[in-house]
């Protein structure tokens, strides 16, 4: 993969902005961390939904799995997990700073690799489904996981799971800064990975699957292998995002926080579509715009925020069916490096 001079300037600019952001807008650290998580979710969903043409509602499974795993490892490494999650337990456990960060580090590793392995295991059967059948099946995955985890006592069941509180290090701002830089790091990691695979043959194969899977197979491509690898990559980063989100929220509830298919599961699809699916930058722009609008609606349309959000979605679908990136591409094709033949364009208009 080669980076042009212009791109290099852009990336350095964004990186600088990302590192400076929590200091420029200290009050928005939590929102910025959530924005990073949202971008990771939208970008990884785009691998399936955008590039491969498989509309997955099941990525929330990996996100929730990562969240529970990270917190469980973080607690379980030092204290008995069952006593931690037991309600009404009289004992109070406190992590020392070293324990907290060690636990978080190991927790995140587990939160990344286990979901990836799970994706590999279930992928073989589920990715054999196509179209609506795949969408419905993955929708069930998230719902089932939520109900099952709500019945497992050791992770708190219906009581929920309070994740370890952030230890007393430095100032009040250190928690926000820690989680922001962690999520920003994961965002950068995701971007590099996704950009990397989008510049290889792998992306072309995914596109081939999207455009005509049977033909791709007939050309000798082992589509199943690529579909599974793609899903594993998404699962890896969704798990990481979930682990961070668990620590950030501080309280895990089975259906409302972890396997939150109704919100996060739908939002990741929405953000990718808003920005323009099947593009590298689309999900990123989509997630950012979505997050800003959402926070704005919450402040200014109290009680009506979902109505406002609904109107926004309708407007997007009607006026920007291809997403923001798609709209920009149509409006300014030359900026995307496409050459427009004026004569040809006029001829087409006249034909219409």
């Amino acid at each position, binding site marked *: 993969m080669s980076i042009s001079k212009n791109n290099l300037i852009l990336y350095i600019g964004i990186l600088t902005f990302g590192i400076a952001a929590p200091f420029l807008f200290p009050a928005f650290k939590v929102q910025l961390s959530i924005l990073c998580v949202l971008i990771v979710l939208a970008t990884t969903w785009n691998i399936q939904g955008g590039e491969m043409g498989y509309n997955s509602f099941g990525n929330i499974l990996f996100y929730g799995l990562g969240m529970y795993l990270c917190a469980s490892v973080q607690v379980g490494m030092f204290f008995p997990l069952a006593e931690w999650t037991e309600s009404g337990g009289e004992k109070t456990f406190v992590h020392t700073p070293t324990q907290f960060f060690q636990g978080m580090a190991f927790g995140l590793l587990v939160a990344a690799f286990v979901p990836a392995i799970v994706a590999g295991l279930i992928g073989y059967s589920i990715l054999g489904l196509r179209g609506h059948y795949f969408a419905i099946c993955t929708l069930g995955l998230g719902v089932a996981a939520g109900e099952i985890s709500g019945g497992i006592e050791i992770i708190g069941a219906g009581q929920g799971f309070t994740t370890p509180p952030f230890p007393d290090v430095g100032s009040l701002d250190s928690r926000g800064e820690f989680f922001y830089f962690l999520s920003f790091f994961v965002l950068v990691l995701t971007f590099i990975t996704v950009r990397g695979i989008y510049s290889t043959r792998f992306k072309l194969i995914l596109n081939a699957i999207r455009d005509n899977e049977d033909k791709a197979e007939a050309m000798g491509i082992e589509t199943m292998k690529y579909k599974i690898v793609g899903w594993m990559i998404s699962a890896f980063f969704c798990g990481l995002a979930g682990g961070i989100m668990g620590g950030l929220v*501080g309280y895990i509830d089975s259906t409302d926080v972890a396997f939150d298919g109704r919100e996060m599961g739908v939002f990741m699809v929405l953000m990718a579509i808003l920005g323009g699916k099947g593009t590298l930058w689309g999900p990123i722009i989509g997630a950012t715009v979505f997050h800003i609008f959402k926070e704005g609606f919450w402040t200014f349309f109290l009680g009506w925020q979902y109505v406002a959000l609904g109107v926004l979605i309708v407007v997007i679908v009607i006026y920007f069916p291809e997403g923001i990136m798609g709209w920009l591409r149509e409006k300014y094709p030359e900026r995307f490096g496409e050459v427009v033949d004026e004569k040809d364009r006029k001829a087409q208009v006249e034909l219409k």
Partner: protein
Amino acid sequence: MRLNKIILSFISALAILFSTSVVSFAKVVGDKIVLGAAISLTGKYSSNGVHTQNGYNMAVDRINSMGGVKVGGKTYKFDIIYYDDESNPKRAAQLAERLISQDGVEFMLGPYSSGLTKAIAPVTEKYGVPMVEANGASRSLFTKGYKYLFAVLAPANLYLDVAIDLAVEKNNGKGVTVAMAFEQDAFSQDVRLGVLDAIKRTGSKKVIDDKLPKELNDMAATLVKVKQMKPDVLVVSGHTKGALTAIRQISEMKVDVPMLAMTHCDAAKLSKQHGKNSQYALCASQWHKTLTYKDDFFKDGMTYDADFTKEFGYAPPYQAAESSAALLVFKDAFERANSFDQKKVRDALAATNMQTFYGNIKFAEGGQNVDKPMVLFQVMCDDAGKCENKVVAPTKWASAKLIHPIPSWSKR
């Protein structure tokens, strides 16, 4: 590539937007004490969220119109910034963060439900923001060593264990068989633990122990089991929807059980919505209008009931009453601390020992109110079909005698 220009201008637009939207309130603006609250205005807890908000608003208006809060020789008025947490813990934690770090709120009121309070408490604790909450009863809130959390209500495990005691008493001291159906959420599961303790203590036996999904709309499977097992007591808890679903399906399926104990009957306006079908249901309540507690602002329960009904058009459930009480506690603490220093206010809160129309308030080490017992009321209807909630236990407050066992459906 020109695309870069688009993205760069997008980012700079974003930066400008962020920097202009930093609006900060101070904790005390002019003569206003600004409190922050995340309330469930939408989502599964929306009806109770509104009860909570009405309770807060009622108390704010009353305290402000009766002279406000006097601190350092100056009079201040309460003001509340509300956000909608959508009954979602993730959202609630974010909003708490936002109230504190963006809106500069230094004192918080609690949300509705234990789960949401659990999500907010770590945030308020981190920033040292005193929070008086009126709707988070889960016991595990009070064993986490939180210093800035104060709850005006009795913990959840005390809700229905009295009912088991009552059933055992009616059974001549012998153990009873108990069927339990609880929603999978922090509050209901804690009520369940309390009932389990009571079962153990009284030598009773649990015959059904079902977990019900959130957004409880159907519990027919449990009721079929109840019909076959014929337990002495059926215990159901699942917030407002749980209470409504239970009564609807019990009456539809004509399930006969000698004692039916529930939570959230008054918040669900059971006697109004289901009339005679809800008759004989036994309900745990933090407060009832006939209790004889008094204070200067709302006088007593009956007056509160009348004033609230006049203002909002429905009788106040205990969720509203306890929310109003939270404001009284804050006012009292501010005046005793005579300062807006968070630590001083926190210490004043910890030393609270007062009576309100809602009950006595005194906080234990963990922040729970230990000076106020729970009451049980039973829905009783006259022949015309007009139903009323009457307190039957504990004996000190009882205004009617418990009807036990519940007559079978064929005889109603």
